[in-house]
């Protein structure tokens, strides 16, 4: 979450009236900033990871695990510490973090959440890569030190019993408040900063009903058929939205949820890279996009919602539904009358655009049905922006701004980025292309990779972060080409949800990632012409049909390579990159252990978090084969997760299936 400005937030009917103005001003800010920054060059690779935590409170006496809503106090105490921190002061006797800046902590949507980032961004120096894991562990220690003794930060994507009937939060508040109007969670579940309840409330108002999350139930032996979510209350009459369930919002054989907190209360692992310049940023944005669903399936860690095992392994679609502000007209449920267009995806969804001026970007890869605001696109093109990038932003700007502060509408300041960011930061796609912030001149063009699920241990989180960094280096060094039609990536995103998709499902992926050879020439042209974005290079043989460029592959084939097929595998690509640079022995050893984790997750030697959690529940002595994750199981699971975080499955300890692959 970005910076949190304060002010008078407009309720939806008022905000709606100002939406057009905010969009227009946002576009002017974008254009001004783009003109200033488009020539920004030679920025170093800097990157950062964001780790999100749930704060849990354990009640050992009654064997209950609850979410703690102490975010504000914890952050206050953390901020005080950070302010008092002196670089030369050895606060840690072991000197492990000498020279490292203290981690930053940030509020998140959920009041039971924390986000932590490294104090300074990482570089590509291999010594930096070695610090990532210990820095993540340090963040956990620092956070824990500012909590009550029975509280701790854990990195589960979702709390297993969020939204159940029991007292799963501490302190307890009853549900059905004015902002969320949820029958399962109270308004107090969300960060009290005005931005968050306004965001949730305006999504609900714009949509005309509560958000609706239906996750298929995991059908076990004793699960009722059909399964009707027993926690749904059909007789509540506090708010007009209580009619939702009486109008069929809760589907058979699904776990039903009705609030933003069920989605935005999930923890993710996000990585942001700074590119050399805008061109490189646009290239990374495109090339990383097809990897989004692959890494989602590979990091799968979300098999439980609201006290039930579900039949999906990842969080993505739940967040998507939790912030889906589309009206019935936009959803296509009723004919268009007042709204401008039908919109196929939620604001939180996989990407729909490619933006790189790369001659290899064939027009066939683009979404022919992309919805764009043509007026905005025209304004951007008139302002000098190229078609591809103008299309991208004109697509993001089909949405309404959700949180508008009336103080910001008095005068347009094109040297700021607030109105632009209003739209940009509430387009939660799996890739985000970030222009340099207009207020600072030491930050370059950046790309954020957003699909990964948070992992239980910092070893895993470091492994996936570093893997992604190395992949970007391999992409740039080898000039790799992962383009597939963008609709296939959307389909892959759905596929990634399937239970055990990591081993059982196949994903569309490009067969040959290598650039066509353009040898050094004797006089003829080599240089790619950046303005002919969707042209093919003149000298190449005619391209085959797009469909022949990709095929369905397993995650193992994508990660480790196809034994028969042509795709070399992401890990061999990374290894090949590492063989081309000078890496010292110690670093290579560390990197090898990270790459090994990913290799083995892909081939099934190691379990995903989703599988491990599911197995933990189904093998728990009190589990009744009815899909129910009871308070007792939840408590034991949280305890187990805490232990895995510390011992990492060593010597046959709990969690070895996740991290070691063998007991000894």
């Amino acid at each position, binding site marked *: 979450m970005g910076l949190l400005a304060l002010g008078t937030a407009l309720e939806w009917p008022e905000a709606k009236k100002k939406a057009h103005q905010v969009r227009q001003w946002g576009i002017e800010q974008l254009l001004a900033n783009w003109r200033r920054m488009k020539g920004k060059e*030679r920025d170093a690779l800097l990157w950062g990871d964001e780790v999100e935590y749930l704060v849990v409170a354990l009640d050992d006496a009654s064997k209950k695990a609850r979410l703690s809503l102490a975010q504000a106090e914890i952050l206050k105490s953390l901020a005080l510490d950070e302010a008092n921190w002196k670089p030369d002061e050895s606060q840690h006797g072991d000197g492990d973090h000498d020279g490292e800046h203290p981690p930053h902590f940030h509020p998140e949507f959920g009041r039971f959440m924390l986000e932590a980032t490294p104090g300074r961004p990482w570089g590509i120096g291999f010594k930096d890569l070695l610090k990532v894991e210990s820095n993540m562990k340090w963040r956990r220690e620092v956070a824990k030190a500012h909590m009550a003794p029975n509280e701790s930060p854990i990195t589960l994507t979702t709390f297993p019993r969020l939204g159940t009937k029991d007292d799963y939060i501490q302190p307890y508040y009853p549900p059905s408040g004015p902002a969320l109007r949820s029958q399962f969670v109270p308004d107090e579940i969300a960060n009290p900063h005005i931005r968050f309840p306004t965001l949730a409330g305006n999504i609900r108002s714009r949509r005309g009903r509560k958000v609706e999350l239906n996750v298929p139930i995991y059908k076990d032996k004793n699960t009722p058929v059909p399964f009707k979510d027993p926690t749904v209350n059909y007789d509540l009459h506090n708010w007009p939205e209580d009619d939702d369930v009486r109008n069929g919002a809760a589907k058979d054989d699904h776990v039903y949820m009705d609030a933003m907190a069920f989605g935005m209360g999930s923890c993710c692992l996000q990585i942001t890279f700074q590119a*050399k310049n805008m061109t490189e940023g646009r290239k990374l944005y495109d090339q990383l996009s097809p990897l989004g669903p692959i890494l989602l399936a590979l990091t799968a860690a979300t098999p439980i919602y609201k006290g039930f095992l579900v039949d999906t392994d990842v969080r993505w679609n739940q967040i998507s539904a939790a912030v889906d502000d589309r009206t019935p007209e936009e959803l296509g449920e009723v004919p268009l009358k007042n709204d401008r267009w039908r919109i196929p995806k939620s604001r939180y969804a996989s990407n729909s655009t490619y933006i790189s001026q790369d001659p290899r970007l064939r027009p066939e890869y683009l979404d022919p049905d992309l919805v764009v605001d043509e007026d905005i696109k025209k304004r951007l093109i008139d302002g000098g922006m190229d078609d591809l990038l103008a299309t991208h932003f004109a697509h993001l700007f089909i949405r309404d701004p959700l949180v508008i502060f009336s103080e910001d509408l008095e005068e347009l300041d094109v040297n700021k980025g607030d109105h632009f960011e209003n739209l940009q930061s509430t387009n939660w796609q799996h890739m985000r292309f970030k222009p340099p912030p207009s207020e600072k001149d030491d930050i370059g063009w950046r790309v954020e990779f957003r699909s990964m699920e948070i992992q239980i241990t910092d070893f895993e989180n470091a492994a996936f972060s570093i893997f992604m960094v190395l992949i970007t*280096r391999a992409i740039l060094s080898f000039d790799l080409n992962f383009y597939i039609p963008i609709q296939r990536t959307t389909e892959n995103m759905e596929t990634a949800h399937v239970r055990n998709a990591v081993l059982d499902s196949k994903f569309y992926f490009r067969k040959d990632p290598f650039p066509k*050879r353009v040898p*050094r020439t*004797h006089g003829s042209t080599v240089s790619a012409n950046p303005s002919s974005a969707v042209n093919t290079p003149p000298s190449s043989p005619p391209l085959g049909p797009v469909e022949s460029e990709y095929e369905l592959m397993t995650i193992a084939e994508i990660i480790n390579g196809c034994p028969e097929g042509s795709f*070399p595998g992401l890990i061999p690509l990374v290894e090949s990159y590492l063989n081309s640079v*000078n890496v010292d022995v110690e670093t290579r050893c560390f990197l*090898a252990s990270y790459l090994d984790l990913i290799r083995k997750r892909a081939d099934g030697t190691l379990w995903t978090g989703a599988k491990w959690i599911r197995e933990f529940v189904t093998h728990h002595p009190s589990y009744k084969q009815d899909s129910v994750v009871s308070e007792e199981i939840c408590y034991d699971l949280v305890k187990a997760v805490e232990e895995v975080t510390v011992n990492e499955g060593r010597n046959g300890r709990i969690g070895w299936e996740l991290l070691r692959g063998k007991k000894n």
Partner: protein
Amino acid sequence: MKLILSTSNLMQGGRPSVIRQPLSQKSNIELITSLRANFLASQQLATGHQSNGSNGDANGSQNTVQDYKAWTAERDGTLYIPALDSAQSGLSEERSQYDITVKLFYLPGVPVSRRCAHTREAIDLVLKELHVTSIDLLIVSFPGILFDADDDSEEEEAGKPDDFDSIVQTWSTLESLHAEGMISQLGVAEFGSERLARFLPHTKVKPSVDQINLKDCCVVPKSLILYAKQEQIQLLTHNDCNDILPVGTTRELLGPGDKGAGILASAPNSPDGIQGDVEPQWVVKYTAVVKDRGVVENKGTLLLQMLAHASKAGHEREISLDMHNPASSREDLRRNSTSIYIPSVPVLALYHDSSEAFHYSFVHETGTLIAYPARLTQHAALAASHPYILQSL
């Protein structure tokens, strides 16, 4: 005549061979395939042929004779294969943005006395290729040194083709290049702690890097780690093959036939190419990495061959024979005859000479047989190029 073979920039080529090799596979295959790919691409560019295949038909070789001059360049008695295009800039940003590492392989069988000249020659070519005036790190690889992580002792074969004195002697050449400002740092490859300890007192400029090849880089001998730390020598990893250039592979690469570049003649007195035998002299690998972004921008390999007339080829020769007729094979060996292609069946056989057991291993790529004394076959890399093997026949 000298032949300079070049892969050009491997990072731009879309050269699948760079990556497809499983980790266990030897990197010398990588070198040969990337050279071949670069030759083929240059041929196609020069002749306008777009066919991916080779000129397999009978007339094909006729064409390539004409062709090779179109895509190679001869200057001052050196044939550049393909022609190095110095008009193209090697690096896209200014020099200070890069870390340039060069690794020079001295090859077995090449007299130590030539190394001084070879080193300058190789570095000069890299500097020209990258359009720079200095490199950051030069790592030299001496033939015959194998690093073994298990017992921390490097192995040297009896006869020591590369004895300690020659290493020290070579090093002083490097030190002078360092003094001239051409090279900022020097490094060695495959040195264990014992050899390092023996070596350091003989150096004016200490190696700042020791590059070791490890299957599992987490099992570096403790003694080496400690010693390197103490002497402030950085231990780097690599995956180069010890046998960077197996005997016979470049002959096929340059010769006629499906996989050849059509530069060397198909037979003595045949007019379809250059006459003579090729003798590899050195191999040099270079990489240019953008420092603060970790992007490999330029990576390539250059290889120098000397061309000698068959009758003068003294210390290295390929012996081919008909495996269907062992008797004639024996005679062929005795007569010390030069290459005759044999039916392409993979063969591995032991042939007993009266004085010594010989090991014939079939070289798939070339279809020629190479003979080594059996006692050396554990280290075929060494054996393959021992000068005296065939002379002793």
